[in-house]
């Protein structure tokens, strides 16, 4: 198979998977879940097979169909898209296992619909990654929005429905009212929507109009969650945790910031942005988002909500890197897509594992949990350190490059924002771990009692039995490790180790991304 076929396989394998999942249905749950894992592998393998060609500077391309003259649905793999597709498809494999453990352990309903929509969303994410023009990207972007709605509204109660409406409302409104307008404007001004190194707008749109167009794009890409259009992301946390983990820490939100990068590099052109300075406001907005979202995260006691605001903050790292538009900053932004993906998915996996094993959602309830779930809380620590960005974790590299890029551009304010944000990260990500390992369980913590058992079945099958009304000292004595099911624990350990691996084996990633600088796509 040549690269063109591989691209199509990567995009369509999840769709075929979704269809097979629907056919297998709830009655044949084991077959269905096996098919999902196979589909995820069948997506990752072709993506990984294209990698050498792209690393060597190739741009494999395939045109699917031309809708209107000059507007084809086409795919072309360049380094950034390669990176995003690799992460999304690789983490889908891990998330598949995790989701099996979580959905069964948590007794979720409608699992067939859930897994099918999940697969469609992955297909859309790969479509976003490989899109050869803004038109294809927009189409895949909308498919991603719509296919994730059933996942957000999964529980079908009034809270889920309200969250679903917020989710869909913000993402569709911004994409249709702003992004589509920007795309049409671009088409009209430039006569093309192809992603072209150096951009397609130079000399076509000038002066204040360029700033307006940038505004339309940046706020049209609602998935990048710039303030004040970020509220869909915390709302989406009502979804089952695998969705929060893969989609709302990786696929969906990264599709947003990935689109930001693509638009800035291949539509506007970094040179144009730097010489005109129209992206100055974006630096301030993204900087504000970084700090403000971190501050909100500090106030959240619900673990998933805290992680969600952390994601809002971290996404703006990538936007700020794109807005700086210097080679180092772009490198840092692109790498942050990978680093944050591994770090944040680990954190969400842990949050989900805690929910499955103990049904705790609030950080203040998690005192002493480290003794009971050492692997989970250990992984949480690694994930947190990666997001904070210290060595030896992958997150260090992206922050390093971002700070370097900011210094390059002479934006001391950005340097300050990044440093303040790092401190804030420490302040909101480490306490859950510290409480879990260092504090004793609260005396009114009854979750280990007998009654709990009958209620939650095999999810807590590892529980040891204990009498009612014991104080925490007794709990310590009975202690022992009672983790979530293996299907949950193993994936989160893998991604946690991945954050370290990304520090030591970052070379191929550098090599891939230097491609866009060497090719002159991002000029110095």
């Amino acid at each position, binding site marked *: 198979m040549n690269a063109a076929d591989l691209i199509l396989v990567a995009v369509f394998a999840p769709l075929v998977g979704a269809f097979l999942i629907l056919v297998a249905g709830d009655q044949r749950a084991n077959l269905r879940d096996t098919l999902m894992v196979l589909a995820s592998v069948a997506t990752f393998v072709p993506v990984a097979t294209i990698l050498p060609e792209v690393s060597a500077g190739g741009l494999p391309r395939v045109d699917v169909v031309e809708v*209107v003259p000059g*507007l084809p649905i086409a795919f072309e793999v360049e380094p950034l898209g390669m990176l995003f597709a690799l992460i999304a498809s690789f983490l889908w494999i891990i998330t598949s296992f995790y989701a099996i453990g979580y959905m069964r352990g948590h007794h979720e309903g409608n699992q067939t619909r859930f897994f099918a929509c999940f697969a469609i969303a992955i297909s859309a994410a790969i479509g976003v990654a490989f899109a050869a023009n803004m038109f294809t990207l927009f*189409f895949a972007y909308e498919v991603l929005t719509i296919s994730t709605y059933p996942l957000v509204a999964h529980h*079908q109660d009034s809270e889920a429905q309200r969250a*679903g409406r917020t989710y869909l409302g913000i993402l569709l*409104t911004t994409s*249709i009212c702003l992004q*589509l307008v920007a795309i049409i404007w671009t088409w*009209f001004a430039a006569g093309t929507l192809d992603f072209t190194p150096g951009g397609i707008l130079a000399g076509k749109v000038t002066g204040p109009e360029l700033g307006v167009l940038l505004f339309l794009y940046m706020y049209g890409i609602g998935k990048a969650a710039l303030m004040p259009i970020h509220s869909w992301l915390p709302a989406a946390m009502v979804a089952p945790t695998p969705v929060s983990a893969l989609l709302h820490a990786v696929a969906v939100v990264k599709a947003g910031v990935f689109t930001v990068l693509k638009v800035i590099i291949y539509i506007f052109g970094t040179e144009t942005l730097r010489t005109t300075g129209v992206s100055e406001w974006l630096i301030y907005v993204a900087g504000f988002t970084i700090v403000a979202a971190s501050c909100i995260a500090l106030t959240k006691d619900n673990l998933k909500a805290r992680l969600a605001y952390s994601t809002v903050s971290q996404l703006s790292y990538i936007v700020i890197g794109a807005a700086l538009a210097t080679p180092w900053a772009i490198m840092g932004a692109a790498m942050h897509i990978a680093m944050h993906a591994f770090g944040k998915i680990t954190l969400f996996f842990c949050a989900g594992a805690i929910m499955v094993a103990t049904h705790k959602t609030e950080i203040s309830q998690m005192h002493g949990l480290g003794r009971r779930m050492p692997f989970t809380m250990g992984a949480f620590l690694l994930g947190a350190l990666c997001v904070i960005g210290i060595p030896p974790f992958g997150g260090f590299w992206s922050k390093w490059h971002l700070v370097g890029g900011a210094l390059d551009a002479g934006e001391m304010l950005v340097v300050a924002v990044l440093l303040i944000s790092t401190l804030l990260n420490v302040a909101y990500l480490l306490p859950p771990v510290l409480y879990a390992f260092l504090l004793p369980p609260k005396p009114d913590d009854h979750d280990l009692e007998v009654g709990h058992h009958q209620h939650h079945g095999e999810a807590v099958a590892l529980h040891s039995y204990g009498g009612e009304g014991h104080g925490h000292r007794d709990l310590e004595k009975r202690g022992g490790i009672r983790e979530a099911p293996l299907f949950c624990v193993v994936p989160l350990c893998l991604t946690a180790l991945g954050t370290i691996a990304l520090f030591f084996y970052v070379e191929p990633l550098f090599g891939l991304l230097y491609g866009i600088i060497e090719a002159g796509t991002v000029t110095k």
Partner: protein
Amino acid sequence: MIAVHLPILQVVLPLIAAPLCVLFRARDLPWAIAAVATWTAFAISGLLLAQVYSVGVISYEIGDWAPPWGIEYRIDALNAFVLLVVSGVSAAVILFGRDSMLAEFGRSREYLFYTAYLLTFCGLLGVTITGDAFNLFVFLEISSLGTYVLIASGNNRRALLASYQYLILGTIGATFIVIGVGFLYAMTGTLNMIDLAGRVQAYGANTTIVVAFTFLVVGASLKLALFPLHLWLPAAYTYAPSMVSAFLAATATKVGLYVLVRFVFTIFGPEFSFVTLSLGLPLAILALVGMFVTSTVAIFQNDVKRMLAFSSVAQIGYMVLGISIHTMLGVAAGLMHLFNHALMKGALFCAVGCIVYRVGSSRLDAFAGAGRRMPWTMAAFCTGGISLIGLPLTAGFVGKWYLVLALIDRGWWPLAVLVVLSSMLAVIYIWRVVEVAYFRDPLPEAGPVEEAPLSLLLPTWALAFANIWFGIETSLNVSGAFAAAESILGGFGS
């Protein structure tokens, strides 16, 4: 040579078939006659379109009376295109009709229903094909009379009132048209459209001509349900049987739009209509206001058929807006949307018809749980809905894309933004249905419900699939619309 006589066969076959239904009223025979007549008409319109594309304008003299004395059927790229839309959607809808009508209307006077259907069909085709202004009025009356019967056959008693409302407003519209034609005849002494065009345009802005123009435009606007002359439409679509709603939504208003375009562009000429009388501005304003007002009203409807009816008025706004730009791109975009909207509303009304067939109601509550119990029906509804919203890879996208391009090209870019914004309203009203269908549990009193039978599903899916097909393989709708626009614009505005 039968090929020479295709133009007249297009109209006469349904006309002959209509009384046959009364003669052969045995079980299913009337339906079979109607189906065969519709499909033959579909085939003929396909042949006519191919003929127009290969050899150019077809002129057929009825009874060999040479125009302008005799009646001429004149087929150019515009009406060949509209003929194909009308007969194509009807061909799908008539297949849908058999079981749907049995459930909603019963067997007893079935033959009368199909007679009325064939007369309406014949009238619509006649309006489109004729090259004679008075003949156009006659066919318009035939189709209107048939339509009154079709609407009144709804099993809700309010169908009678809806039909009566349409009767009053439709008659006013037809009267305006005949008055307009009368004035033109008084001025020029001819009724042949091409002949009229030459003489009318020579007169310029003569008072009589302007009055004739006004009567014709208002009359046609009533027929095509341009906001605010749409008041007859919502009730008519809501209380008519499902098959009739699908049929009318996809054909009647489209032919109304054709009449407007024919009068404004061919007879009066774009120069007179848009430069001397600046028709573009009022049309654009009404279209835009209509788009927003009726889309908003659609959001608050609790009956899905009524919701789709208001949506139809909004969508007519897109077509009229395209026409009002009166450039090549604009007119083509308007005509493209005519084609595409016929497909979307056909699919949507048929999907609602499937729900009515199984659940017995088109109220929003009746959709609860349909996503699980009637997955294919709801998938077709979603496909039609997505096309209506205008997402890429559906027919709806292509039309909206060209409309927005035309607006920007004309320099009306704020309107382009408004068109994009108005799509959001479509998202909301379609989404309300989707949410109820997929995320609400069925009403307890609804009882067990299963998927609609294949006889309903296949035509519905044929239309839904067409929405995707013409969103990807756009040669027929896009090039067809451009050819049609070119045939009526000539060199104007380029």
